[in-house]
């Protein structure tokens, strides 16, 4: 009995930590399993509220769960080894002159690491190789939207964008991107 209680308290604490992390800016995305064993611990009783009433939270019933606030993070997620290996494979194919093969591997990487800037930069490079500069530019912008405060990701993104814009004949845009990289 005692061990069950300890386990439950442990789980509640875990849940508390998780929800606290979820609001923090630096932890990367929070993975939330459906439950499996965790879901067998009884859920804290919930107060049934009408949609238009303010939500009542009884402190005693939800001891460790802070009221949520909207979540954000300062930079994109780190790459898993699996995603890294696919990007490596993509880069190898690109170097071998097979941009279409590279894109296949990079799209696999994108599906398992969709919140990492690097994967989009790699896609931008593959499309640049194919001469599809508009597509390449969009991927580098997407990558930049995930770079956040990561200076090295920002720098590679802006330099890549500068190169693509230069190739497209957008000299002013290229200069602007280069300047952004220099300012970092």
């Amino acid at each position, binding site marked *: 009995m005692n061990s069950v209680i300890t386990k439950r308290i442990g789980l509640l604490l875990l*849940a508390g930590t*998780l*929800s606290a992390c*979820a*609001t923090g*800016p630096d932890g*990367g*995305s*929070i*993975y*939330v*399993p*459906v*439950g*499996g064993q*965790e879901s067998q611990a009884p859920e804290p009783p*919930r107060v*049934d*509220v009408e*949609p*238009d009433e303010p*939500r009542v939270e009884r402190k005693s019933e939800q001891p460790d*769960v802070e*009221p*949520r*606030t*909207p*979540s*954000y*993070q*300062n*930079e*994109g997620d780190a790459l*898993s*080894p*699996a995603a890294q*290996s696919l990007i490596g494979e993509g880069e190898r194919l690109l170097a071998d002159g097979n941009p279409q*093969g590279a*894109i*296949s*591997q990079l*799209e*696999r990487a*994108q*599906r*398992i690491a*969709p*919140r990492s800037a690097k994967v989009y930069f790699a*896609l931008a490079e593959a499309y640049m190789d194919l001469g599809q500069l508009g*597509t390449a530019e*969009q*991927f580098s*912008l*997407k990558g*930049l*939207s*995930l*770079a*956040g*405060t990561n200076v090295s990701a920002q720098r590679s993104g802006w330099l890549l964008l500068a190169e693509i814009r230069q190739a497209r004949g957008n000299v002013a845009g290229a200069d602007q991107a280069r300047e952004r990289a220099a300012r970092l």
Partner: protein
Amino acid sequence: MRCRIGGPFRYNPAMKKTASPKKTSRKPSGKAGRKPWFWRLFIRVSLIGIVLLAGWMVYLDAVVTARFEGRRFEVPSRVYARPLELYDGASVSAGALERELELAGYRSGGGSAAGRYRRSGGQFVINTRGFQFSDGEEPRRQLSLSIFGDRVEQFRVLSGPQSPIVRLEPAQIGGIYPAHKEDRVLVQLDEVPVLFRNTLMAVEDRQFYDHFGIAPLSIARAMLANIRAGEVVQGGSTLTQQLVKNFFLTRDQTLLRKGNEALMSVLLELHYDKDDILETYINEVYVGQAGTRAIHGFGLASQFYFGESIADLKAHQIATLVGLVKGPSYYNPRRHPDRTRARRNLVLGIMAESGLITEQEASRAQGQPLGVTSQASYSENRYPAYIDLVRRHLARDYRQEDLQSEGLRIFTTLNPAVQYAAEFAVSDTLKSIDDRSEGKLESAMVVTSRDSGEVLALVGGRDPQFAGFNRAVDARRPIGSLVKPFIYLTALQNPDKYTLVTPVEDKEFSLVFDDGRRWEPKNYDGEERGEVPLHQALSKSYNLPAVRVGLDVGVEAVKETLRDFGVSGGISEYPSMLLGSVSMTPVTVAQIYQGLATSGFNTPLRTIRQVTDARGEALSRYNLKVDQVADSASVHLIQYAMQEVMQEGTGRSVYRTVPKALALAGKTGTTDDGRDSWFAGFSGDLLAVSWVGQDDNGPTSLTGATGALPVWSRFMSRVPQHGFSPVVPEGVDYHWVDSERGALTREGCEGARYMPFVVGSEPDTEVSCDGSFGRRLRGWFEGMFE
């Protein structure tokens, strides 16, 4: 009308021509004894007969060769789910992995044969079959992994080439069949094990490589046996004759038919070599039925009955399949296992007799269970709504005839686990809210991958197995408040004028049109609240501020935003569009919310990754594309307010079902009298749109929060995933503010919120915890809504 075409008026050249010599033969019948007359007549009749026979042969030859050439290539296209990627950290529950394996035709149990897996608790050992993807081969491997907290851990390749990430073979989820509904998997003769070929010949046609299409001796032997038994116990048909018979799909046993078959068999042998005929036979033979789908050929038969490739069959499985030829329904191994076992063991006996296997091997094989899979590895109508959308996408680039006959492989983006959760959420939730409407409630759901736009699941109605009206694709309904994020996004794109804390007026007003009509929008609850900060106006879905802001930025500008995000149809010019009197299908809503879910990047929805030919060569690719349609900063602000919807706004009941740790963002939508209940929202991984309403547009007592949101929540609670946590874009800073008063404040003060602002647009006044202002209000704050 009918008798003019059929019956006595039909022209039949064969009848006419054979009748005419009879007429002439009547004259001489009276004059007996004139031999030269008789002989001349006989020769003439014979000549005519030979000419007719030759003509008939030419005709049969044309028929049989056309059939032989044509038939060999008519293969349905196969539609596959996305392959499951396994690696350390992969998001999958143990239950979902097991379902996925079963869907792909894997069988539980020991052994290290390809296509087998072992599970104990969260521990899996999987023997993959390997698969030829167009971007490279995924070879056979033995994998070991464990699943903890819905994630793959300790992923290892036990045998086969090492790799940190491995794709399972994709499960087949459907096919695009020719009109005659024949299904087959083409195999080449060299892929068929020698034992298989020899067994087939030993049982069906011992002299196959020696005869010329027919084997008169065998026929005589069979006739004798039949006469002795008093019934048909033995067929003397060669494989060639059986093939010809199969071509014409007729079971009548008339003498004329038999003669034709024999002639055609001889003709076939003249044109093609034995191997060609044997290969065609192996691909053509009818071996079973799955609903309306006819199972042809041993290539498909080995998958259909054993879930294995023909190259991997063991002696007892070969004997079962060869035994089936005699009567696929009489010896149906799933329905009549005893008959099948007897027949199989007979075949095994013949195999031993012919020296193909030893006596010991035969008796060992005879002791084996049949080992057929409990059901066909997939049912063709499992995902009717999804396949429907796939077919529409295919129709843009492919002709129906090619899809039905060229054996194409279509690799879709369907995620079976997500589809399963979506189907469950729809059908289960609808049962519990049925009493909220007088008519029959219906529903639809679309789930996409947030950053790639891949459609992972699609539900077209409350009965997901029903292949009828596909509401996800075809039901165009007013979207109600789902339009509001686009109004506020349009406003927030001008940070000098609008921020999340800009006070907006929640006060009634009326608009008078040029033609004298009046429009007086109301809040859902009929209340007015005076001034509310913009973020709250969105999270609580107040109507009056939305219309006021919409009119301020202009209906045209809001339309422009909607178009940028992917609405292609017409959008109403009337201000009532600001309250969502613009109709869209659930799929279109998913498309426009994609841009809100990412940082303003429109990502075209896709159901197909790739189409390849039968050999796996890519014919078309549908690659990921992104297109930035809004600046990331203003989208980030909207994402803040859409998260607030889930925490304090109209969507907050979501956390009765979903774990609090899962950060979500979304928006409810309701139209007049609850005719449409919508919810659209997203997590870190998924974007989902749900709709509930009646097909006849009847009223319900539902709102977005009580109809569509419960469906959405139940779905989200059943899929392991990452929470929503957007990266702060460049040019956005977070500040502690008192949003009611539109001023900066300090952390810990009552009502303090940490909110994002486009740099420079944050309030320039500060209010302390006790409520006193530090500086005068900014000019725009007072002057904006006079």
